[in-house]
């Protein structure tokens, strides 16, 4: 456990924003925040002494002193492009955690789809959200201080509700921008997703920094996937070089439902994607995949915990990373198969390509199996680039630098190209290309 802080100190240290002023006073919301605040204060920041934080040290976060809310002027021309124009159903933009209607699009959505700002939803229909917000991401379970910290400041973020039987093909694009022109900034966006029976949607998150500066983006997300519903939840994290990015994602999947997630990480000095999924009813499925590309002193931690709670549930995980310089990658993958979850299967794979002798990869698979008729597997590898492949390419005239890039792209491409939403593969591959070309220009963070 970290150093305990008085609740008032937590507010002061991590709460630049006047979060509470933005949403109308609602006793249930206030008590949700207070409870989380007290838990966060009692726990303090996680430290490597806690098992689930063994490889990730939050000292850089402790050292930051956050200033009052300040923002760069951001015009629509400064938005980063991930999806080409017209390729999203709606684009929602948040700057330092606050919804910016002026930068977002307002295209009509199919009937039964609500996609917008959580703050607006709370203002319009607070009572309607009372039973959703904080129900799945509730701070129970081990080492949830970062989620509690998020809940303590809950005010805005993505709110998505898809009604029974509604299927929306184009992605909902969510751009989270961080900017800290003067003093470091802290913000705690909260995403709330409810997918009703037989519904489907794609959410694409793009996290980016504008104008540099240090900021702390502490995301919380909770999603309920109803019976036979599908959520494809994809993310590109290209935060500013000095940013710290935390994401705590909690998901419940109902019978025959699918939670399909993918996280590409190339930004931030320190980041962690923590995804916790409960497969609650027969036939529930999840795919938690990701790639990361790190250099300099970057650190990225992908931590997942999957609970198979019912029969015939399945999970698939593939994380692949490329680590250069002194970068460090962490993969912690926990799979728990409960006694009732017979005929379930869980497969997990972590692979890292180390481009430098000083790069480091820590992989920790944890399988806890309490049912006897299950199929589970895990694997973790970390190694250098294949010298035979490199020589083969060079022997055909391909310069060494180009050959290395080809092999890095090849290493990551099968994970990216296995995305269910094929239309997004080119955008993700071009994100890999950006990372590689940053190396060519020596633009290391």
């Amino acid at each position, binding site marked *: 456990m970290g150093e305990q802080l008085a609740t008032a100190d937590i507010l002061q240290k991590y709460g630049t924003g006047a979060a509470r002023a933005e949403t109308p006073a609602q006793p249930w919301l206030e008590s949700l925040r207070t409870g989380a605040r007290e838990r966060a204060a009692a726990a303090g920041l996680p430290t490597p002494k806690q098992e689930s934080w063994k490889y990730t040290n939050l000292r850089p976060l402790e050292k930051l002193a956050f200033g009052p809310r300040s923002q760069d002027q951001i015009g629509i021309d400064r938005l980063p492009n991930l999806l080409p124009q017209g390729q999203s159903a709606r684009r929602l933009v948040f700057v330092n955690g606050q919804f910016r209607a002026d930068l977002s699009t307002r295209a009509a959505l199919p009937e039964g789809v609500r996609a917008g700002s959580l703050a607006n939803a709370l203002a319009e229909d607070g009572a309607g959200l009372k039973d959703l917000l904080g129900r799945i991401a509730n701070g129970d379970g081990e080492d949830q201080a970062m989620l509690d910290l998020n809940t303590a400041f809950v005010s805005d973020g993505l709110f998505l509700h898809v009604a029974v039987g509604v299927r929306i093909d184009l992605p909902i694009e969510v751009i989270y921008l961080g900017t800290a022109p003067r003093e470091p900034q802290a913000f705690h966006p909260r995403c709330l997703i409810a997918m009703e029976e037989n519904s489907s949607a794609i959410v694409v998150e793009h996290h980016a920094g504008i104008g540099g500066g240090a900021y702390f983006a502490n995301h919380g997300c909770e999603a309920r996937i109803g019976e036979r519903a599908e959520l494809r939840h994809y993310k590109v994290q290209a935060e500013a070089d000095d940013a710290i990015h935390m994401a705590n994602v909690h998901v419940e999947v109902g019978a025959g439902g699918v939670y399909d997630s993918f996280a590409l990480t190339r930004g931030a000095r320190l980041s962690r994607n923590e995804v916790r999924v409960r497969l609650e009813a027969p036939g529930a499925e999840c795919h938690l995949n990701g790639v990361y590309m790190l250099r300099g002193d970057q650190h990225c931690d992908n931590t997942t915990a999957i609970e198979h709670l019912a029969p015939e549930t399945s999970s698939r995980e593939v994380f692949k990373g490329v680590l250069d310089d002194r970068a460090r990658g962490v993969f912690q993958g926990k799979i728990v198969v409960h006694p009732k979850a017979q005929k379930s299967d869980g497969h997990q794979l972590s692979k890292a390509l180390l481009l430098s002798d000083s790069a480091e990869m820590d992989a920790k698979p944890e399988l806890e199996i309490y049912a006897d008729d299950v199929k589970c597997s895990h694997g973790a590898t970390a190694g250098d680039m294949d010298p035979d492949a490199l020589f083969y390419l060079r022997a*055909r*005239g391909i310069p060494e630098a180009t050959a290395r890039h080809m092999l890095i792209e090849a290493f990551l491409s099968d994970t990216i190209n296995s995305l269910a939403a094929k239309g997004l593969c080119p955008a993700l591959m071009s994100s890999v290309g950006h990372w590689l070309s940053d190396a060519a220009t020596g633009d290391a963070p």
Partner: protein
Amino acid sequence: MLEIKNLHATVGGKGILNGLDLTIGAGEVHAIMGPNGSGKSTLSYVLSGREGYEVTEGEVAYQGRNLLEMEPEERAGAGVFLAFQYPVEIPGVPNTTFLREAVNAVRKYKGAPTLDPMAFLKVLRAKIKELQVPDDLLKRAVNVGFSGGEKKRNEILQMALLDPSLAILDETDSGLDIDALKTVADGVNAMRAPDRSVLVITHYQRLLDYIVPDRVHVLAHGRIVRSGGKELALELEKTGYAGFTGEAA
């Protein structure tokens, strides 16, 4: 074209080539035959610049240039091509992309304009027809899931596309059935030209029925121990290598 003088090379500190001399003129096809462990593959890797093969003595001049000072990609750019004994599988890199990158890299070295994807496809289609390479091999990742014969055809396809001045074929016949062997040999024979030399490295005489060499050399203990015309290959087929390796026949 190629002049090797007193070449000594070690692998992992162990001497494999021990004073090898070989001269190949322009337009000539030479064969090097030798038993396992005689240094055949080491010679091909030293000539193509693979890491871990250390030249301790001697020199190699290629078209008058010091070949040993050049990076592997420069050698390829200058027209040296090695058909690998064991072509490497590269998951995730589509064969067509690989071939295009290679062709354009070599074109750059030669000062020729690079080909855009459409122009390249045209060239590629013509070559695969000529060499009877199945279409399907272009769509798959480089050598991944290819049969032994398909891998060797892919090597010959690369050779034809890169248009080298010196082609080194390292045990290209291993793992080939007779039909594949003929296709591969036809591919090589089609490329015979006054300004191109070929070095065929092989354990067996069989390939030399189809690619008929101008000169045959016997390699043993890292040196050429005998040279002769194409009939030497036939003699070897009858007597085996024992007479050349210094061991009792």
